[in-house]
C-alpha cells in the first residue's frame, strides 16, 4: 500500500502539471461548487480526505452500530424497500378503489393521505371546512369511513402508514377498531402514524393543541402502543415537510433529529424506559435533487441518531439505535413547466433514496404541481421504483457508495454541520423552545427565500423553468375532485349520527374528558369513543375544551 506521503506528493504533482495546464486552457464553470447546505465541494476527493478515520467507528457494517451502511445486515439483498405511494382523495369509497388498484400493480404497502378537516379535527360539516372536504386527501369523519377505506384489505397482511398528527390518536384508534372487526389481533398490525406534532408547528401547519398538551397525547400513544401494538411505528419523525418548506439538507437532518430528541426526552419524563419505546420510533425524509448530498444525508442521519440514542440517552438495545426511515421524493422540485421532465427528476431522487438505504419510498407523480396524481401518473411513479429495484442492480450490494472519498467526506460534513445546529438548539432549551421562539421557522424561511432568489438570478438552473423553456399547451389531464363529494360526505355523516347509540357516545366522551383533565392514558377512552361512532370533530372538541388551541405567531424577516 502506498503511504500517505506518496499520495500527497502525487496530488501536488497533479495539481502543478495536468490540472494547471487544463485550467490555463479553460477555467471551470464556476468559482466554487456548493451543495444546498453550503458545503463546498472539492474538485476531487482522494484518500487524503479519509486520513486518520477509524473505519469500524465511522462506518461499521450493515446492521451494526453506528449503522452508517444500513440498518439491516442484508439490506436489499434480503428484500427491497417497501413501495408505498401516499394516496387519498375524495371519499373512502374512491380511495379504497385506488388502494386496490395500487396493490394490484405491485405496491407493497399503503399510505393514507387524509383531507385537512380530518387532520385538524373537524367534521366535514364544520363551517371552516368549506371547500376542503376530500380535497388533499380522503375525508374521514367516523369509524364508518375507516371501515369503507379498508374494505377487503386484510390488515394482517398489508402495512399501513398514516399521515396524521394532531388527530393521530383518533385515527390509530379507528384503525385498531377496523382490525378488530376484521378479526385481526392488534399485535399483528404493522404500520406507522406520523404523530410528529413539532414539525407541524415548524413547517406543516396541521396542529390543534398547544405543544405541552400535544406532547402528552404523543407519549400516551407511545405508552399504549408498547403494550398493545408491538409492531407499530408510533411516530414518524419527519424532515420531509421541513425540507419542503425550504430548508437545506443539513437543516432537515438537524431539525428532525432535534425534534426526535425532544420526543425521547418527553417520553422519558413521562416515565417510560428508553428501550421500551425507542425501537418503534421511525423517521421520514425528503429526497431532493443534489444527488451526492442526499445520499450522504441519509448516511449521516443514521450515524448521528445511533450515537444520540446510545451516548446521550444510554439506550441499550440495538433496535433503539436504528434510524429506520421512509423517503418521499421532493414535491417542491416538481415543475409546472414541461411536467414530463418530473418523471426524470423523480427517478434520480428515488435512486438517491435507495443508495441512501431507505426502508420505504414514495415516488411523486409528474402532475403534482397541478393537482393530486392521476392513475396514469401514479403508475409511472410506481414503475420508476420497480425499475430501480429490478433493473438497475443497485440493490445487489449494500451501500455501494460507501467508501467513495466524496460521499464519505460529505457524510462527515453534514454530520458536523447538523451537530452544530443541534448544539444551538440544545442551548435554546430544546426543539420545542426553538420552535416556540420561531428559530426553526426563520431558518427554514431564509433558506427558502435564498433558493428562490438563486433560481431567479439564474444561479441555479431548473430545466424547463429558467432555462430550456418552451411555449407549452396547458397540462390539463389531471385528477379532479367533484364538488359533490362534500355533500355526499355530509349526508353520510348525518346517517352515522342518526344510527348510533348516542348515549354510548356521550358516556365515552365524558370518560375522555375526565382522562384529559387527569393523567389517565387517553387512548382507551378514545378507542371506546370511536367504536361507538363518535366523530373526529366530537373527540377533538372534547380535547380542545380541556387543552386549548395553539395560535401561531408569524413574522416575516
Amino acid at each position, binding site marked *: 500500500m502506498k503511504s500517505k506521503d506518496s499520495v500527497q506528493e502525487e496530488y501536488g504533482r497533479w495539481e502543478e502539471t495536468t490540472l494547471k495546464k487544463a485550467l490555463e486552457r479553460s477555467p471551470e464553470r464556476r468559482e466554487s461548487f456548493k451543495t444546498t447546505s453550503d458545503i463546498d465541494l472539492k474538485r476531487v476527493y482522494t484518500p487524503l480526505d479519509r486520513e486518520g478515520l477509524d473505519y469500524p467507528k465511522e462506518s461499521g457494517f450493515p446492521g451494526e452500530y453506528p449503522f452508517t451502511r444500513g440498518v439491516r445486515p442484508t439490506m436489499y439483498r434480503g428484500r427491497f424497500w417497501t413501495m408505498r405511494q401516499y394516496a387519498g382523495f375524495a371519499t373512502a369509497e374512491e380511495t379504497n378503489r385506488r388502494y386496490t388498484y395500487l396493490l394490484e400493480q405491485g405496491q407493497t404497502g399503503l399510505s393514507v393521505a387524509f383531507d385537512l378537516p380530518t387532520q*385538524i379535527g373537524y367534521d366535514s360539516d364544520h363551517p371552516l371546512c368549506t371547500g376542503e372536504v376530500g380535497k388533499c386527501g380522503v375525508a374521514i369523519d367516523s369509524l364508518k369511513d375507516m371501515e369503507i377505506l379498508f374494505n377487503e384489505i386484510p390488515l394482517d397482511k398489508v402495512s399501513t402508514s398514516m399521515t396524521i398528527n394532531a388527530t393521530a390518536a383518533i385515527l390509530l384508534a379507528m384503525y385498531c377498531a377496523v382490525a378488530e372487526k376484521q378479526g385481526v389481533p392488534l399485535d399483528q398490525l404493522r404500520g406507522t402514524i406520523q404523530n410528529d406534532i413539532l414539525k407541524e408547528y415548524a413547517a406543516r401547519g396541521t396542529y390543534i393543541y398547544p405543544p405541552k398538551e400535544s406532547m402528552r397525547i404523543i407519549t400516551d400513544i407511545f405508552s399504549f402502543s408498547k403494550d398493545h401494538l408491538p409492531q407499530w411505528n408510533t411516530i414518524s419523525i419527519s424532515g420531509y415537510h421541513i425540507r419542503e418548506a425550504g430548508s437545506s439538507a443539513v437543516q432537515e437532518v438537524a431539525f428532525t433529529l432535534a425534534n426526535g430528541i425532544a420526543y425521547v426526552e418527553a417520553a422519558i419524563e413521562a416515565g417510560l424506559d428508553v428501550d421500551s419505546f425507542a425501537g418503534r420510533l421511525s423517521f421520514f425524509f425528503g429526497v431532493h435533487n443534489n444527488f451526492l448530498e442526499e445520499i450522504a444525508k441519509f448516511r449521516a442521519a443514521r450515524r448521528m441518531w445511533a450515537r444520540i440514542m446510545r451516548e446521550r440517552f444510554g439506550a441499550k438495545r440495538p433496535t433503539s439505535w436504528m434510524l429506520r426511515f421512509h423517503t418521499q421524493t421532493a414535491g417542491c422540485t416538481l415543475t409546472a413547466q414541461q411536467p414530463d421532465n418530473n418523471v426524470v427528476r423523480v427517478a434520480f431522487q428515488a435512486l438517491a433514496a435507495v443508495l441512501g438505504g431507505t426502508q420505504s419510498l414514495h415516488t411523486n407523480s409528474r402532475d403534482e404541481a397541478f393537482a393530486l396524481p392521476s392513475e396514469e401518473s401514479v403508475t409511472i411513479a410506481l414503475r420508476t421504483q420497480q425499475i430501480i429495484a429490478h433493473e438497475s442492480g443497485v440493490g445487489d450490494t449494500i451501500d455501494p457508495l460507501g467508501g467513495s472519498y466524496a460521499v464519505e467526506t460529505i457524510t462527515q460534513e453534514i454530520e458536523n454541520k447538523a451537530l452544530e445546529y443541534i448544539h444551538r438548539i440544545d442551548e435554546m432549551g430544546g426543539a420545542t423552545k426553538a420552535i416556540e421562539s420561531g428559530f426553526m421557522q426563520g431558518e427554514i424561511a431564509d433558506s427558502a427565500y435564498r433558493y428562490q432568489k438563486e433560481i431567479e438570478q439564474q444561479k441555479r438552473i431548473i430545466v424547463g423553468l429558467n432555462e430550456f423553456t418552451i411555449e407549452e399547451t396547458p397540462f390539463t389531464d389531471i385528477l379532479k375532485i367533484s364538488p359533490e363529494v362534500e355533500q355526499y360526505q355530509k349526508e353520510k355523516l348525518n346517517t352515522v349520527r342518526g344510527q348510533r347509540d348516542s348515549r354510548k357516545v356521550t358516556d365515552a366522551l365524558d370518560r375522555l374528558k375526565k382522562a384529559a383533565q387527569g393523567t389517565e392514558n387517553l387512548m382507551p377512552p378514545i378507542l371506546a369513543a370511536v367504536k361507538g361512532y363518535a366523530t373526529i370533530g366530537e373527540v377533538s372538541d372534547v380535547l380542545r375544551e380541556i387543552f386549548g388551541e395553539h395560535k401561531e405567531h408569524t413574522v416575516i424577516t
Partner: protein
Amino acid sequence: MGERKIRVLISKPGLDGHDRGAKVIARALRDGGMEVIYSGIRQTPEQIVATAVQEGVDVVGLSCLSGAHNQLFPEVVKLLRKQGGDDILVIGGGIIPYDDIPYLTKAGIKAVFQPGTPTDEIITFIKDNVGKSH
C-alpha cells in the same frame, strides 16, 4: 415625503398550512418596495376581508395548495365587494390547475400565478394593476 408605498395583505385562506410560497412572496414584495402584512395560515374569508379593510390595503394575495381555491378565493372577492373594497386588487397562487383559472378570473381574481412564477413577474403585475378600478 415620498410616494405612498403599495400596501399588500398576503393571506392563506382555509385549512392549508403550506406557507412556503406565501412567505417567499411576502418577502419578495417587501424587498420590492411594498408594505406587506402576512396574516399567517388558517384564515377564513371573513377574517381576511376584515384585515384588508382595517389595514387599508391595495392588494390581497391569496395562497392555497389544498385544492379549496375555487370555494375560498371567490368568497374573499364577494365579501370585499360587500364591504366596499371593490378597488382592492385580488390575486392568487398555489396548486391550481389551468382549468380552474378562467372560473377564478371571472370571479374577480385578477391573476393566478402557478408554481415557478418569478417573483418579479408578480411585482410588475401588481404595479401595473394596482389602483385601477376592478
